[in-house]
């Protein structure tokens, strides 16, 4: 009986070793980590709220492909907020730390860029407000209308960025996405 001649022993041994390592560095630490208490002051997002709908759209559009919500406690990340803590993510499923920063980190974007107007224009076409941006435009969250109705939220897009003779109206989806972005504010903690 040896590993060279016994395939059952070979599979059993290598699977067991792998499973023990998996328990040690993944499953048990994950169980432990999810016990972390949320930071005091973090608001619970109600499942049917505008913010929750916006977060679902953020996931749907894969915004986390280019935007992290994860700041390191390093000078290079300091302009975007404080270093991220486990308690920042305790209520999030899935948390959106990310691995690529083609666009800036959004952990604290609700503080840095609180404006409705800016956010809506930026979602309709990022190049209206940031000329060399490479972010995708999301025109499918806006309607082009000849005339706005009474309760419509009109987005003030300059003429050369929209079809002539139209007004751009934000859909409820666009408004929820903006509400989510505005909700991204780091809780202050004692240094």
């Amino acid at each position, binding site marked *: 009986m040896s*590993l*060279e*001649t016994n*395939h*059952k022993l*070979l*599979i059993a041994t*290598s*699977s067991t*070793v*792998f499973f023990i*390592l*998996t328990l040690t*560095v*993944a*499953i048990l*630490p*994950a*169980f432990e*980590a*999810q016990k*972390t208490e949320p930071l005091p002051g973090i608001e619970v997002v109600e499942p049917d709220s505008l913010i929750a709908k916006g977060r679902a759209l*953020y*996931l*749907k*559009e*894969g915004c986390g*492909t*280019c935007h992290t919500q*994860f700041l*390191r406690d*390093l000078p*290079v990340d300091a*302009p975007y907020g404080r270093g*991220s803590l*486990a308690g*920042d*993510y*305790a*209520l999030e*499923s*899935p*948390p*959106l*730390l*990310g*691995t*690529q*920063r*083609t*666009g*800036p980190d959004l952990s604290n974007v609700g503080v840095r860029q609180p404006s409705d107007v800016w956010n809506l224009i930026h979602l309709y076409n990022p*190049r209206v407000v*940031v000329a*060399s*941006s*490479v972010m*995708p*435009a*999301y025109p499918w969250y806006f309607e082009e209308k000849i005339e706005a109705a009474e309760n419509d939220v009109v987005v003030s897009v300059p003429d050369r960025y929209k079809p002539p003779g139209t007004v751009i109206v934000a859909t409820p989806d666009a408004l929820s996405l903006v509400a989510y972005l505005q909700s991204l504010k780091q809780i202050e903690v004692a240094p």
Partner: protein
Amino acid sequence: MNDTLAPPAGSEPESVKLIYHFLCWASFWLIVGTMYGLLAAIKLYWPEAVEYSVFSFGRIRPIHTTIVFFGWSSMALMGLTLFVVARTSKIPLQAPKAAWIGLQLWNVCLLMGLITLSLGISNGPQEYREVIAPIATFYAVGLILIFYSCYQTVAKRAIPEIYISNWYILGAFSWMTILSITAYLPFYQDGMGNVIIQGYYMHVGVGLWFTPLVLGITYYALPRLLGKPIYSYALGVLGFWTNLLFYTLIGAHHYIFSPVPWWLQTTAILFSVGMMVPVWSGSGNFFLTARGSWHKVRRSYAIIFLLTGIWGYALVSTQGTIEAFRSANIYWHFTNFTVGHSHLAMYGFISFAIWGAIYGLLPRITGNELSEGAIGLHFWLAFVGGSVYVISISAAGILQGASWVAGESFIASVDAAKPMWLWRSIGGLMMVASHIVFIVNLWNMRPKRDADLLAKVVAV
């Protein structure tokens, strides 16, 4: 090593057809996956291109990775393993029906994945597990069916020893099964729990699925093509165990300086250094096998493909070790340098090795040889295109990192990277062109009709 004298197990017309189907479907997904990749690359330079929701960057990026991981790389590797397990066990492939059903299940899953991800139905940006659980479940069933076929073949082998290739192959299938289940079970995935599993999953997927499959195939293909035994069997065994021990422990290095427990980060960095043991024992073993056979290497693009893949392995793993250090993380993390690293791995290592094995082994069982020129055209397009891609996107990453460290406004890092993104698209275009050459080559290697094939195999 007796394998070079082996009877043509695995060359039965039924097996050849099955293997060829695996490779054809893999190539189909290669074209789909790289077209998505190319579109994503173009969009970073020209964001208004193809402005439809189903082709939005955030949706197509996970489509690109899902399809090249599961469609192209996994499917091609599994097709090759079906041949290697039979040939090295010296019996016909067992339970080919199971493998066939597994292949079709994967095709259905890939199609469903393509549709759902296009519509934005996904798990969100959790890399390489974006596809929702119901679809992932069928992937797992397909995986286990193909595993069953490989397992039965090795279990009923006609020789007492399990050849080293089959260590890696059986290992890969068992680890991938455990890994997939661990990644999708929800019980420990709230808050930071999810992040710990994410780091583990995305790294171990490469290290204990793609890597061992490629090594297993290479441990058969390289000695076979060179017509000489492997330099050291013991190094192969050392690589097997150290790869298992070290690779599993390093996933957390994707979350350096994060709230992932500090001990886990440090463990990951430490064993990232340890990775040099399996990497250099594997690649060194292959180079030492090839030493003294340059007259053969020179005349065969199949061997050149394979050895380029091995170089890619050594290079990308050494680069990965350096990237794991906290000091390197400050400059390179979050930048496109990571994208360069992953393409060096999935293309320069995995894909080149796959092509070497296909060009080296497939003609021997289908009976249709290719001209060296046809393989050479594929090689040079892929090599130059891949190099342009990796060098330009890594340069983009270095420029981004430098801009951030200098404290410039964020858009300055976008402007700095843009010229490199153009070069990246040009490299990507050459890669796509090489894949079209590959499709033509694959067609020209199709199995001869049964009677001809049998005659050819007997003659050989």
